[in-house]
């Protein structure tokens, strides 16, 4: 009862399984006992194996400490013993619902190190695939956020659309979740016949369906009551923690790699980035919905501007990146994904650092949780979009 934890305030407290907890009494006039509660690693709200250790005073969260690592698979070590072709298949798997964006990051890093000029058509198709992948990802979180607030219908609607999108992406890539469609120097192969028609049609359908989600959730009084003003994040705090993606955009900061450091052919497209104003759960969710529309805009631009030509460079059998180091960042659906690639000239990287958006976003979570209600924790964790595999790698 007497001992207090070593650090208070803005700095994250370290935590781990089996660590002794101490309780601090703040106001002697009303002594209530705090309850220590483990949310996770097996808990429906954390959709994965994230663990949050919270101290509760009644239903108010006094202290929150995310404990990560339950899904650490050593991707960075594995990358050091795989060649670049294998790494593309590997990085599909750390954030399994933004697979294409991850593999694109690796391909770009190697290409930048080798100073390759990828064929234009391949670059346009990369944008197309990346944006569809972004929509797939956002649909997932739109559904799951509803589910976490107790609205069980949106998830069925969004998975219906995911199914349709995956079906025609499969026709080009052969994969439904792990596409493995990028190659160093281009793509696996060109788009199959009929793909663009399917893509056009789906883009149209998706627009009307997106309005359906809006009506279903944003038209609901309880949804507003549950999310407005909940977990409001200040822009400077977000930037200080390295928060990116929809979570950052909701605070009003339009820091989007597609906008500020365009890769592929984003500099030739009109990229729009929806931003929020308050940075609360509601804004984060609306930004997600708007981002689907923004992605559809981009997809339609690609439909119109897609040039012909090859999609591959002639590459040697074994890709060897020259000696050197490069950092490449891409705008992944959940935020900024970065690959710091150090090569010693061999066919495997010397070091491959994966900077994942979820890692930085989860680090910030205690800032939002402390002082909020247990019920709000669900609205906060559900709207700071993360994938546990992306946090732990």
């Amino acid at each position, binding site marked *: 009862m007497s001992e207090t934890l070593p650090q208070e305030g803005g700095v994250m407290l370290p935590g781990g399984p089996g660590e002794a907890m101490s309780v601090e009494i703040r106001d002697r006039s009303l002594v209530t006992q705090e309850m220590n509660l483990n949310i996770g690693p097996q808990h429906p709200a954390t959709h994965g194996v994230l663990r949050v250790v919270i101290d509760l005073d009644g239903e108010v969260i006094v202290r929150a400490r995310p404990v990560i690592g339950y899904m650490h698979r050593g991707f960075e070590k594995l990358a050091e013993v795989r060649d670049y072709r294998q790494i593309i298949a590997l990085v599909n798997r750390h954030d399994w619902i933004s697979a294409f964006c991850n593999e694109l990051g690796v391909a770009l890093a190697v290409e930048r190190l080798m100073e390759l000029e990828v064929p234009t058509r391949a670059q346009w198709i990369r944008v197309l695939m990346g944006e569809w992948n972004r929509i797939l990802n956002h649909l997932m979180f739109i559904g799951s956020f509803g589910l976490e607030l107790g609205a069980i219908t949106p998830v069925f609607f969004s998975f219906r659309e995911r199914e349709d999108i995956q079906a025609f992406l499969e026709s080009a890539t052969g994969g439904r979740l792990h596409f493995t469609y990028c190659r160093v120097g281009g793509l696996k192969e060109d788009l199959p016949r009929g793909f663009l028609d399917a893509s056009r049609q789906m883009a149209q359908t998706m627009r009307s369906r997106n309005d359906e989600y809006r009506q279903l959730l944003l038209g609901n009084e309880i949804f507003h009551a549950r999310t407005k003003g909940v977990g409001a994040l200040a822009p400077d705090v977000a930037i200080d923690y390295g928060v990116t993606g929809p979570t950052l955009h909701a605070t009003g900061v339009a820091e989007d790699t597609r906008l500020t450091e365009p890769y592929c052919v984003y500099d030739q497209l009109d990229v729009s980035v929806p931003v929020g104003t308050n940075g609360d759960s509601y804004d984060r969710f609306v930004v997600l919905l708007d981002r689907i529309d923004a992605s559809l805009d981009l997809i339609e631009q690609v439909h119109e501007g897609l040039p012909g030509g090859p999609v*591959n460079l002639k590459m040697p059998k074994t890709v060897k990146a020259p000696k050197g180091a490069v950092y490449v960042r891409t705008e992944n659906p959940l935020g900024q994904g970065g690959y710091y690639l150090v090569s010693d000239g061999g066919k495997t990287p010397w070091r491959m650092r994966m900077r994942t958006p979820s890692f930085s976003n989860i680090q910030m979570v205690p800032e939002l949780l402390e002082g909020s209600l247990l019920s709000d924790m669900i609205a906060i964790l559900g709207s700071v979009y993360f994938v546990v595999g992306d946090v732990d790698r």
Partner: protein
Amino acid sequence: MPTVRSSETPPPATRLAPEAIGALLAERLPEAIVATTVAHGQLTVDVVPEHLPRVAALCKREKALGMDFFDMMAGVDADEDGFSVVTRLYSTRHRHEVLLRALAEGGREAPRLPTLTGVYRGANWHEREAYDMYGITFEGHPGLEPRILTVENFEGWPLRKDFLLTTREIKPWPGEKVPKPKEEPATSDEAAQPADEGPSEEERAAAKKAKAERAKQKAAEMRAKKRAQREAEAGGGATASGGASESGKAGDGAGDEPEEGGSA
């Protein structure tokens, strides 16, 4: 919700070229900067380790730099030099970046660096991860323990090159097992150099093959040893089938030459 369009937000005029940032840093903190390199359009600044927080603070607070965004921190194994840490800072206002590279003091035995948590809150977990993966101690960090990603009683520092992946002890290709002492450390300042071509590559391939053969031999030995052990334990007919399957597997392993998929 309002939207920001790329057509409305051209790169700001305050954006500095990588060389300009390097020059500015070298001018303001000459004692802290070892070298500045620009490769692939990216600026890498080698920093004297004890001055790392000062440089980061300058990057953050200097108006012209304004690097408010802590992006990531990557530990890198630098062979006999020890370990280095690369930190990327970025300015959301000016849209320019810098990679700060600091070689940890204390060599491979007790690598240590001053913490950046006083400058950027986001550095906390990245430093904990670098500690977890490389054993680099960040002085002044609020708490590196318990280990952030691995289990708390994990032994060793998994991303060091001398930490071997168990599978690679058995089946070496295509990864490297140990740091290659003859070669330059990865953190050298050189820009990209074209990889060796022709004969040297062949030579290397041959060497690798030889190495693979050796490892395979070792693996076969181990398997044989294991089999012998098992036979000693169990005895009788059951081992015969077990042994057969084992040898089958070994055969598979021998035929497991890397299959190069032409991507062209």
